[in-house]
């Protein structure tokens, strides 16, 4: 029951955050220079009547940001997110086309990055070999020092991987060092705890030591990173999809930004924030779920 209340509270918080974010974005878009101006107004081929008609079409309603936003929400509830000014296609269709590609790449990248980061962190904490620790730490530091766009460019230069695979690999390289450093610090602290040293001294088998004394106690703290890593993965997807020419949401957001197709860009940003928010909420709930004790 408490869990259900917590779930409802978290979900409401995420939704409210996204809704308020949307309202702020809508107000910003209305205030942006050039809002309500159609490029065709400057095209000499259009006559005065046509330009007047175009202006009428592009003119924002006089009610302000809030009524506009509420109208948008009502339309969005029926699946109508409007039409993209730069792509001349429904926004919902554009997003539906690109969203799965980004989700797949981000999912694969997250899985790869988390696996690599956790395996290396566990090995570093379990083996307690300074050389291994130093090597893994240096590799993580190296990838932390590089912008995701440079990693994507390296992938393009290497030229061995296809678009979507390259995106997943770059996202994994962005996630891995962060997971490794965070998990290594937590696992290191737990590995040095007196009860773990005692278990070692008593000759507890390595696998049992790893599972019962390292992984289980550290899991809640490490899980807290899951939500943030989803946000980082989506952020990294923009330059990577652009450079690797992978038609996903990141590339669409970049194209919308360059063409100043602000409604499309805001829709994408809100969707991505919602996904990141839900991932964060799931991580929070998983972290606070009571552990099942062996009987």
């Amino acid at each position: 029951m408490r869990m259900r209340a917590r779930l409802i509270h978290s979900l409401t918080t995420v939704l409210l955050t996204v809704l308020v974010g949307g309202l702020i974005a809508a107000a910003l878009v209305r205030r942006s220079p050039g809002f309500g101006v159609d490029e065709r107004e400057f095209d000499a081929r259009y006559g005065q009547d046509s330009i007047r008609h175009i202006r009428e079409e592009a003119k924002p309603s006089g009610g302000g940001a809030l009524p506009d936003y509420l109208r948008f929400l009502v339309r969005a509830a029926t699946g109508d997110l409007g039409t993209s000014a730069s792509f001349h296609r429904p926004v919902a269709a554009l997003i539906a086309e690109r969203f799965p590609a980004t989700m797949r790449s981000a999912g694969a990248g997250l899985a790869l990055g988390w696996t690599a980061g956790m395996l290396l962190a566990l090995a570093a904490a379990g083996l307690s070999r300074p050389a291994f620790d130093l090597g893994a730490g240096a590799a993580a530091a190296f990838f932390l020092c590089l912008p995701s766009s440079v990693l994507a460019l390296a992938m393009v230069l290497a030229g061995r991987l296809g678009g979507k695979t390259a995106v997943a690999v770059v996202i994994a390289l962005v996630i891995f060092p962060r997971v490794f450093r965070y998990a290594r610090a937590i696992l290191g602290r737990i590995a040095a705890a007196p009860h773990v040293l005692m278990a070692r001294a008593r000759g507890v088998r390595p696998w049992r030591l790893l599972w019962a004394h390292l992984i289980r106690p550290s899991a809640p703290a490490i899980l807290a990173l899951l939500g943030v890593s989803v946000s980082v993965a989506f952020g990294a997807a923009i330059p990577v999809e652009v450079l690797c020419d992978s038609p996903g949401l990141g590339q669409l957001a970049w194209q919308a930004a360059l063409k100043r197709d602000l409604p499309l860009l805001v829709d994408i940003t809100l969707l991505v924030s919602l996904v990141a928010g839900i991932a964060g909420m799931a991580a929070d709930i998983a972290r606070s779920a009571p552990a099942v004790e062996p009987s």
Partner: protein
Amino acid sequence: MKPLRRAAMALLAAIYLAALAAAWLAPAGYARQFRESPDAKPSAVFLLGTDELGRDSFARLLYGSRVSLSLAPAAAALATLVGAVAGVSAGYWGGWIDTCLARLMDLFLSVPWLFLLLSVRAVLPLNVRPLESIGITFLLLGLLGWAGPARVLRAAAHEVKSEDFMVQARARGSSPVRVLSLHLLPNLAPVLAAQFWMSIPLFILSEANLGFLGLGVAEPVPSWGNLLAGLQNLDAVAGCPWRLAPLVLLLVVMACFHFIVPMEDFSK
């Protein structure tokens, strides 16, 4: 101080000095075109060769470093300042101020960093003069990057607020301004400094990513972002390792920051 940290600080100081002295060290201006020598190889005249427009790459690297290395700390200072005002207010006053500010922090932190930058950058005019683009880029970083430091400072202010000396100061009837300026802020100074130092490399990387996407500092003014964007011309890079100089310098500077302050902020 560990020797590695000391060496990193010395190297970073040397790079900063070279960047700040670009006007004296660079053999030519960053925009001057030597039209008779486009795509020149490194030589005594052009230390790092020239680009396809005949501009001295060494001069552009120095001036670009000056832009990125001096404005990233400025943006970090702005983000830390805004974060300090929000975080300390939330942590100290509590109540509805804390609730509202905490929700605002959550709002900023819930949007993936690059999506947030891209969206707000696109709201502003894209065709601006190069100097305006510098201002816009680093102001954006400073004004949008406040939520991370604010969250940390809010937690720290909460902690310090419940210390005995703070309770005693309030019980003695000290004014809020006195409590804040004499007791709270001095105790938060190490956290503030850490947040400032941690923001610099993050903003350098963010500017590089924005520049790569064509939404950062506009040409002809060089910055690490648009210098790295030049690497996208694969034909020009192939067989010309000296063109990787901006990337190498970025790596060196980031490694120096890495040794000076651990980059633990996961959210960007």
